[in-house]
């Protein structure tokens, strides 16, 4: 095992940042800690690095219990969200810092620095100060500086968070390649599911200081095991519904949902989470279609996006270009929707909060 995180707790004043988190990272694996801001994912990373001391729990690096060691003794590499480059040192000096404090031989340091500058493609920038570099360049210096000490594990805190979209994509791909090349056990923190899905071998989904799910990108996307994961991974529609007298209705309507897998013995509020691609939009009513109104149609390249309105509930759906062009869809047209697949959760789980979060993330309006 590269990294073992065992049951860690961390509290800041009255706020529980990390609440009993455990997971393993295999040797050479690239793992993403995915979660919204404030979920505690950065704190977990900082605890692995030794920058925060957990109130409880243990951290093992390469089978050694390092919980009691300082960051200096752990020999981990940490890349900070805002790079944390030494402003008063040149690129070269920044990269050499870790080697210099280890009192390596001058010649070895020079050689290593040259090699790393080549690796991160910053030839010609050796004498520049961080203030003279672009965001992507700074991030690469930060990475080179971290790699210089040959850490046994690499920890990256929102490594691309401060970069604009295009640079971010390039750098993410480059990081993936670098990881394949160096095969160094790595953990990175992100709030961007695309980033996590794109470059990680494994995703650990974190919410409110707890692990929600661990699995490959495919696992987490296709088999979300909790409401939170479903809502966080991918764009999701949130539909309020109620269970009344053994029947399921969409809230404030008389649209009934037939579902035999759900326990309907207790009357309660529930929430349906439906992915846009799991919503079928039809012109004609089939047996279980709900009537709705098309509010908007947007061209999105290879597909079309619908904004639909069912009573007071607004949902988003997508349709393939070919399918779309076959039938003439228009604004303010009546249509019928079918939920091909969905997840049901109790509203008492605090769905309102999830909804707020989704709103902030821009998944719903």
């Amino acid at each position, binding site marked *: *095992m590269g990294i*073992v995180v*065992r049951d860690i707790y961390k509290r800041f004043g009255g706020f529980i940042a990390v609440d009993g988190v455990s997971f393993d990272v295999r040797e050479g694996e690239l793992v993403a800690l995915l979660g919204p801001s404030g979920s505690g994912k950065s704190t977990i990373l900082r605890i692995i690095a030794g920058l925060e*001391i957990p*109130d409880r729990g*243990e951290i*093992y690096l390469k089978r050694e*219990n390092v*919980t*009691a060691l300082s960051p200096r003794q752990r020999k981990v590499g940490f890349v900070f969200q805002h790079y944390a480059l030494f402003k008063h040192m040149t690129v070269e000096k920044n990269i050499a810092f870790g080697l210099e404090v280890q009192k390596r031989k001058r010649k070895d340091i020079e050689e290593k620095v040259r090699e790393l500058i080549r690796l991160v493609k910053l030839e010609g920038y050796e004498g520049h100060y961080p203030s003279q570099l672009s965001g992507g360049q700074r991030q690469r210096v930060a990475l080179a500086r971290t790699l210089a000490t040959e850490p046994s594990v690499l920890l990256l805190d929102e490594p691309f968070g401060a970069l604009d979209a295009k640079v971010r994509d390039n750098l993410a791909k480059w990081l993936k390649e670098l990881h394949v090349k160096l095969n160094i056990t790595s953990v990175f923190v992100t709030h961007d599911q695309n980033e996590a899905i794109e470059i990680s071998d494994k995703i650990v989904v974190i919410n409110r200081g707890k692990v929600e799910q661990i699995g490959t990108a495919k696992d987490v996307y296709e088999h979300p095991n909790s409401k939170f994961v479903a809502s966080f991974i991918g764009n999701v529609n949130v539909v309020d519904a109620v269970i009344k007298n053994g029947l399921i209705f969409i809230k404030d309507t008389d649209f009934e949902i037939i579902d035999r897998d759900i326990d309907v013995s207790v009357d309660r509020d529930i929430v349906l989470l439906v992915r846009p691609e799991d919503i079928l939009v039809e012109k004609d009513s089939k047996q279980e279609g709900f009537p709705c109104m098309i509010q908007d149609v947007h061209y999105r390249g290879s597909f079309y996006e619908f904004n639909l309105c069912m009573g007071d509930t607004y949902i988003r759906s997508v349709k393939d270009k070919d399918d779309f062009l076959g039938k003439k869809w228009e604004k303010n047209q009546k249509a019928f929707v079918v939920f091909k697949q969905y997840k049901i959760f109790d509203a008492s789980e605090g769905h309102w909060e999830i909804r707020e979060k989704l709103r902030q993330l821009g998944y719903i309006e």
Partner: protein
Amino acid sequence: MKDNDVCIRPIRKQSHFIEYTLTFSVIIWFIILVMAPVYGILREVIRNGAGIFIDSISSPAAIHSFKLTFWITVTAIFINTIFGVMLALVFVKQDFRGKIFLEGLVDLPFAVSPVVAGFMFIMLFGPNGWLGSWFGSYNIKIIYALPGMVIATLFVTLPFVAREVMPVLAEYGIEQEEAAYILGASKWQTFWKVTLPSIKWGLVYGITLTFARSIGEFGAVLVVSGSIINKTQTATLHIHQQFTDFNYAGAFTASLILAVLSFSILIIMKCVYKRKEKGYRWA
């Protein structure tokens, strides 16, 4: 969990040794250096009793000196507020040759010894000075008289308003002003309705600093005034005189009054500073 052949070690505790030692030393240093003298004067005045306290501040010379300080301070604030804002406007919004040099000169009163400052004005406005002889021919006395004392105070307090207003103006003023112009406001309207409100707290802070420095100024005013009792003696000069005359009770009481006054100014400064947040902080 096969990895952990566990021996549970205590979780690392952060060492507070450096923190506690440093905090303790700093507090001790602060108390000895700054708080002890304040205590010293309080104790002295209390020991002397209220009788002497009232006697020594109700003497005509003492009253006159405080009045003089008050009027000089008011004048200095008035003139330096106007010119300070003007300097800030010119330096922030205009560009001309030699601007950087002039801007540097504005800081000079911070760096010049008050005695040298006073001496410069004797050289310029004294009976044999360049301008002094000209004023003298109209029978206007500047040195060893009130005008000289005001000028000396103006000099030492010149940077405060300008320096406090400049950063605020640079930050907020200009865009809003342009918006006001576009909306059809005249320059004068813009100044009163847009510029002034936006620099308000910087201005208030600068005025407070000017106030504090004016009532406390000693060296420059001493040199140009000649310290004539009941004529050109300000509060600080009065304290100095009492002290050199071995009238300690008088010196202590007057000092306490000025100290209390300065302390109140300090409190005001803190309140204003909280609202201002930006700008230079060296007084």
